[in-house]
């Protein structure tokens, strides 16, 4: 559906909240007030604060500007480990990774690229499709999460995920860096939650906050359903691409410059 159609339709929405199905069960909601502020050029990374839409209307997504992400910076990964109690054992076989920095070297030469990889929170998550006990679920705001109360640790989701976004808790950690967030007992699968506990408080994920603080500002997080949000403005202005979009999983994390 062309962008203009969507926007004009939204503007037509009268006093109440307007909603329109944009395909694949994704419903686009917005309030008239927000529809008015839609459009315009992408704001600077500074306008990256969360606007909390009414509950259940948001659809969180992330854009990572590859050109701003530098080689040495590990602000996002470090922040994630502290926030979510993700342990680092120093043994690459068992380390948990909710977000990790990778280096891409073009095979035919050229500059290296550095970018963080995390769960893409697919709209069609294969991990959720294969989970035998429905422990993996998609929240109303599109965040794919694991119910660790229910996970049996069969690891089928790790087989099915093409992004290697999931890790298994091979060992328990005694460290408890952030006591507000549960850690994991061994034997369940864990992955990025987009810091759902922070989103529910109206904050932004720890990695994005750390990225902003470090001055790189390479991560833009926001509501894909809100035409006025910084992320939607950015996506409309700059070409972005998800990883392995050919698989048709519709990832909600996209990158510029890959």
């Amino acid at each position, binding site marked *: 559906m062309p962008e203009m159609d969507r926007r004009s339709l939204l503007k037509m929405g009268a006093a109440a909240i307007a909603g329109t199905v944009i395909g694949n069960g994704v419903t686009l909601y917005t309030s008239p007030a927000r529809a008015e502020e839609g459009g315009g050029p992408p704001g600077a990374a500074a306008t990256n604060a969360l606007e909390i839409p009414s509950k259940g209307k948001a659809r969180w997504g992330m854009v990572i500007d590859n050109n701003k992400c530098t080689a040495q910076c590990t602000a996002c990964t470090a922040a994630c480990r502290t926030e979510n109690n993700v342990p680092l054992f120093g043994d*690459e*076989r*068992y*380390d*948990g*990774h909710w977000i*990790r*920095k*990778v*280096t*891409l*070297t*073009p*095979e*035919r030469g050229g500059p290296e*690229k550095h970018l963080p*990889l995390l769960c893409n929170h697919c709209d069609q998550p*294969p991990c959720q*499709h*294969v*989970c*035998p*006990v*429905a*422990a993996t679920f998609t929240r109303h705001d599109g965040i794919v999460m694991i119910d660790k109360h*229910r*996970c*049996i*640790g*069969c*690891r*089928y989701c*790790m*087989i*099915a*995920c*093409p*992004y*290697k976004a999931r*890790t*298994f*808790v*091979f*060992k*328990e950690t005694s460290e408890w860096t952030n006591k507000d967030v549960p850690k994991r007992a*061994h*034997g*369940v*699968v864990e992955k990025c939650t987009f810091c759902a506990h922070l989103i529910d408080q109206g904050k932004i994920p720890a990695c994005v906050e750390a990225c902003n603080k470090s001055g790189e500002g390479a991560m833009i997080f926001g509501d894909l359903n809100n035409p006025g949000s910084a992320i939607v403005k950015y996506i409309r202005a700059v070409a972005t691409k998800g*990883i*392995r979009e050919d*698989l048709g999983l519709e990832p909600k994390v996209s990158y510029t410059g*890959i």
Partner: protein
Amino acid sequence: MANIKTKFTVIEGNSAGYWLLVAVLGLLSLGGFWSSYMMFLHGHYMTGMTNAIPWGFPIVMAVYLIGLSAGSLVLSALSSVFGRTEFKPLARISALLAALLLIGALMCIILDWGRPDRILVPFYSMNPRSMFSLNGMLYSTYIGICFVYLWAMFNHKEKLVKLLGFTAVFWAVLVHSGTGAIFGFVGARELYHSPLLPPSFIAAALSSGTALMILVLYATFKFTGRQLDDGLIRRLGLYLAVFIAVVAYLVFIENVTRSYWPGNYAVQKFLLLFGNKYSLIFWIGMIGCGLLFPFIILANPATGKSIGWILVASALVVIGVLAERYIIVIPGQVMPMEMFPGYHIAGPFQDGRMIDYYLSPMEILFGAGITAFVFFLYALSLKFFEMTPDKAAGESGN
């Protein structure tokens, strides 16, 4: 009962040899349980599995045992469904083995979970889209069918036996196709994603099941001093040769399909040429032991009629199909996933390179222990139930 010539009896099972066997198998199974308890207590870092290779030897064993089970059950139904009365002597043994092997396979799967204490969760929280969840339902009904089928055979309910035999064949095919689908339906990994996996799983099930049945029949009859009809073994050997040919055909098609497309050269090079230990297991274990050598033995008129050689061929197939299961489960995870075509990727999560999988002693103990437990139950069942055909009555030794 009048139309049944075969008389089934219990084995006496009082000899020192029998109790020694039971004791050894029991001890081994205790070892297996101990290893799974250690995994449960301390976490899966006790095994050779890693975050990059989340499915290790227990899953290989589970798939292998399910295959043996499905093959056994189909053999068991030969006499009742297809009217091949010459296979009547093995009907009960193979149905029993089918049930026990599937129990073993389920134990492999469940004890390999990170949280086997959550065994009840799959019963109240199901996901009908998941092959695992669907298979769970198939497996449990399968075990039920096996036992009802055994009960019907014991009580000589001929019509019910025929009906259940038919259901059992259908269910065995369904169960093992489902097991193949666990891998074949996963689009993320190149070496898994293939619609040929379910049928080739069935073929491998039939070949390994037949081979195991030959060995088990021979061992059971020799051990109890019963007289075994050589013709039965030879006919099973013939079946085995046919099944091997079908497996070989499917393996050939699958690999040729993958090798033909230039985009898959890297994957196929890894599997067939440069993957070091995996290509060794592929060529020596899967192709050599599982297909080529036994087929030569069975197809050659000089050796195909000899009971000794048929036993050798069967043993080779039983080993070779284990290698095949290993080749299905492990290299698909070792091969890195192509996330960024055109780039070489390096990162902390073993990104962009082959990750070796080392079989840990813990997993070997686990696999051996569960297998031993299956045969532990089998040995005890022979003593307590009228499983074994008694051709030479009065002659039975121990």
